[in-house]
């Protein structure tokens, strides 16, 4: 191959990639929207379920354990089908809502476990000190336990966020036009498979790596004195 041929080849490759990028670009906000909304839902549900897991009331701890066990044991893809096709018909859910519900509910189970672990990681002496000062259980949680748990749960929660960003690709199956769906559309129109999936993968990678950096920054910001981390 002459130098000119090589240059031409590279030019052609970049052109293809650029065309695909233009096509995929508008789908990226949808991926982010699904991920962020699902994560917010998962966090809120996760806090309630996580607190219920450690509740002294048997009924709460039992129900929350069932919730976590069931959701961790069912594939997300099945959950998406169940919510969109199974319940969506009855409840009249559109695909956007169904997608967020499925990812959010699935991840809330993992989130609940992280929050439970974060609370239980705090030494029992911290409760005893707070209680011996006359604080109620609620005050102890609010002022003593949760601020310390927060620092502990940030890294694993960030992991879940990154994982849910990747798993948001699964909602492409119910026709939500996010990044993976856009990739499939491009492929089925132009039959360029290598470049399409390379680029889709790269875009996910750029997003997840940026998130990791953001998490490191958050960890520093919420540093708890005395843990030396």
């Amino acid at each position, binding site marked *: 191959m002459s130098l000119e041929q090589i240059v031409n080849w590279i030019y052609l490759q970049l052109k293809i990639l650029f065309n695909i990028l233009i096509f995929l670009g508008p789908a990226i906000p949808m991926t982010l929207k699904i991920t962020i909304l699902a994560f917010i839902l998962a966090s809120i549900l996760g806090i309630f379920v996580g607190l219920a897991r450690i509740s002294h009331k048997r009924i709460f701890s039992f129900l929350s354990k069932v919730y976590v066990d069931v959701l961790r044991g069912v594939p997300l893809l099945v959950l998406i089908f169940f919510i969109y096709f199974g319940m969506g018909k009855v409840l009249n859910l559109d695909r956007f809502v169904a997608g967020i519900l499925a990812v959010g509910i699935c991840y809330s189970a993992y989130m609940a476990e992280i929050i439970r672990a974060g609370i239980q990681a705090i030494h029992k002496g911290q409760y005893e*000190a707070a209680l011996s*000062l*006359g*604080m109620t259980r609620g005050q102890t949680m609010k002022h003593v336990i949760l601020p310390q748990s927060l620092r502990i749960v940030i890294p694993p929660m960030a992991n879940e966020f990154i994982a849910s960003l990747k798993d948001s690709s699964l909602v492409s199956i119910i026709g939500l036009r996010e990044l993976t769906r856009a990739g499939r559309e491009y492929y089925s129109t132009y039959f360029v498979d290598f470049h399409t999936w390379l680029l889709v993968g790269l875009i996910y990678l750029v997003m997840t790596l940026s998130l990791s950096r953001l998490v490191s920054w958050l960890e520093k910001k919420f540093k708890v004195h*005395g843990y030396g981390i």
Partner: protein
Amino acid sequence: MIIQAKDLVKKFDNTLALDNVSCEVAAGEVVVIMGTSGSGKSTLLRCLNGLEKMDSGEIIIDSIKLDHHKKSIHKVREEIGMVFQQFNLFPHLSVLKNITLAQTVVRGRNISEAEKVAHDLLAKVGLLDKKEAYPAQLSGGQQQRVAIARALAMNPKIMLFDEPTSALDPEMIGEVLEVMKKLAKEGMTMVVVTHEIGFAREVADRIIFMDQGKIIEQGPAKKILTQPENPRTKEFLSRVL
């Protein structure tokens, strides 16, 4: 009697940690509880402010009966300060915040009022210069002195000490005992679980000796330390003296 405990029984699984223990403490009295590990002395102390739930028996603190209803337990805990072996300072809060938190949350004092109390107490335990420090930046002895100040900030009528010097390096034990002696001289009612014979001899009005969940001997500190009657007390003292 500011503390009245009657027929306390506490079981952990199959071991009897407290086997029908009764004791009383008068206001202003300093009582030291001694005994081998596992004799039930910490359990007794922890029952007094409801950190451990007794299986049966009756505890009356300053004429408030301690049943495990939320109200009475909080009322009792407001009257009782506790100092732990592991200090248990709040690691995410500065020394000053450690001392003001419960004052504002439980006692409802405003910040400036709470900080004034904290300043006075930090001066008393000799740590005013450390008020902005975090617990991890302090030595064990300093942490324990902050923990004492934190408990005192609630103006308790009774102070419980659960082996306050057992986790400390020998050179730091003195500074904590000094603070405790000062407190005893001011007339604070104190119940202290400790193996510090010197402290007991100098400060205690009475020594309670426990073994296998029972009080086997008690009396004036001098008498117990010099002429113990029970063979187990004798044996224990011969080992620690």
